């Protein structure tokens, strides 16, 4: 199931590159112009409020008259902090979404590895299951071999597992994505 979901995600994401000589889609950006504008406004406004508050407070003679500007300065600092926080959280979320889209997560990878074993009809023994990390996948006629959790191996039917040495003897090279 997890394997199918991961494969579906990749299929959807890369459906455009299945067609040869198609123009590559534009590279996504971590932050858009709207995010940059929001951050610039909150940070800039926060800085201006602090500067103005300092200017007013410096011109007042008593502490009582300076409390207002002090509150304003703290509000400016808070505004800037919220802007920074929103900026970073947006970046983290965008990064996480793209990572999930491009690479199956650990749970998917484990399920994918188990599913492949069932699909190719080479069930692992207890001993070999312990060394599943040493088993790599490749299809007939393929030039590269992959880790079981590799995005490029997701959803492949009929692929067999073998050791690195066996793959290399068959003339295959390690995948450039999962780098087995």
């Amino acid at each position: 199931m997890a394997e199918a979901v991961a494969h579906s995600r990749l299929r959807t994401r890369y459906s455009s590159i299945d067609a040869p000589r198609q123009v590559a889609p534009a590279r996504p950006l971590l932050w858009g112009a709207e995010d940059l504008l929001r951050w610039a406004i909150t940070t800039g406004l926060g800085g201006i409020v602090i500067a103005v508050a300092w200017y007013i407070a410096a011109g007042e003679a008593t502490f009582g008259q300076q409390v207002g500007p002090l509150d304003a300065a703290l509000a400016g600092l808070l505004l800037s902090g919220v802007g920074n926080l929103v900026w970073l959280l947006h970046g983290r979320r965008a990064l996480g979404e793209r990572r999930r889209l491009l690479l199956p997560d650990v749970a998917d990878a484990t399920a994918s590895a188990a599913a492949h074993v069932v699909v190719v009809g080479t069930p692992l023994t207890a001993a070999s299951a312990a060394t599943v990390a040493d088993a790599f996948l490749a299809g007939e006629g393929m030039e590269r071999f992959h880790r079981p959790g590799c995005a490029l191996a997701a959803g492949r039917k009929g692929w067999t597992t073998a050791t690195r040495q066996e793959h290399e003897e068959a003339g295959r090279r390690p995948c450039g994505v999962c780098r087995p």
Partner: protein
Amino acid sequence: MDIGKWLRLQWDRVLAWMFVAAGAIALIAGWVGVSGSAYAAGQLPYIISGGIGGIFLLGVGATLWLSADLRDEWRKLDSIEDALREERPAADEVAVG
């Protein structure tokens, strides 16, 4: 290493360090100003400019630094996506054929 190239590559971290340094200087200057004044009315402008202003600058510097880390990871995903684009069509051709 070429300094110009390094600055171009690491502009966000250089900017972050500049903000952090400015924040630290503001905090120290604020402390010096506050310690030199006996009255609260004389200290408060230093608290606002040096203290709050310094924290503001440190916050911006930290944000820029963390943004640089996120951008680095984003670039790694760019290279993974490029590798996927190269690998995927070839793999599909073999699987179909």
